[in-house]
């Protein structure tokens, strides 16, 4: 026996033969709704944010290792593909945070009725898009500007 829930699926046919009772249909019978999408996306962005954090720790390790490793890490984060990954990481973190804040509100016993859930979904999407894109763009732009400024100063000095 692998799963105790299997026990609830044992039934017998009219001729006495033991069979596995059919399961009721699950997700496939429902139309995709915004609340469903936001629910599963909270998990997906959690996984993506974890993967990004693992990369962040690799960056931290490169910094701790020394100037040469840090220069390599900067090459990766400065690369367009690296910037895209950073952008995705920041947006997933914002997404997962907004989802988490909604969970806190629900846990406190608010906004959990069908009407309220349907009202808040589009608001959540708006906040995610607004805050996520603004934050990611601002951070990446600040970093790029500062890096270029530093490079110019270094050139002048040498």
């Amino acid at each position, binding site marked *: *026996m*692998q*799963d*105790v*829930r*299997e*026990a*609830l*699926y*044992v039934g017998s046919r009219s001729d006495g033969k*033991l*069979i*596995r009772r059919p*399961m009721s249909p699950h997700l496939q019978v429902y139309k995709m709704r915004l609340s469903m999408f936001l629910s599963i996306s909270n*998990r997906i962005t*959690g*996984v993506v*944010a*974890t993967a990004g*954090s*693992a990369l*962040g*720790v*690799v960056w*931290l*390790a490169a*910094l*701790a290792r020394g*100037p040469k490793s*840090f*220069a390599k890490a900067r090459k990766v984060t400065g690369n367009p593909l690296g910037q895209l990954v950073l952008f995705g990481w920041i947006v997933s*973190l914002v997404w997962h*945070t907004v989802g*988490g804040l909604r*969970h*806190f509100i629900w*846990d406190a016993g608010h906004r959990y009725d069908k009407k309220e859930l349907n009202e808040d979904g589009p608001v959540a999407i708006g906040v995610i898009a607004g805050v996520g894109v603004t*934050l990611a763009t*601002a*951070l*990446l732009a*600040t*970093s*790029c*500007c*500062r*890096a*270029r*400024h*530093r490079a110019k100063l270094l050139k002048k000095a040498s």
Partner: protein
Amino acid sequence: MNATAPSHHTVMRSQLGRARGLGSGHSGTEYWIVERVSAASLLPLSGWFVIQMFRLGGADYEDVTKWGGKPVNATLLAALVATSFYHAEAGLQVIVDDYVHGKATAPAKLLVRFGCGIFGLLGLVSVLKLALGRKG
């Protein structure tokens, strides 16, 4: 659950008999609390980190190591790394519980624990090296 024929011929006691009457597991809420408490702790820590990244983004090696060498920065960064991977571990374990069934469950859960533990430790060791291991 996989759609195989019932395998209860192999056990003397019926599977329903084994499952019935056991009541609640008397545990399980700790995962829920771990998730919420770590999430709540991550909010101020992440806010602090975002501000630091605005101050630090694009800075060169000397500036970043100087930043990491300050005790308050190192402490908060260590707290952020530890709490992040603690929260990630709790979340990923629930995902494994929900989607990975049968024989794969145990190895998948071990992998989650191992991965989160190793990356968390790598982050902590790096922070400690920045904070303590400066030459001169």
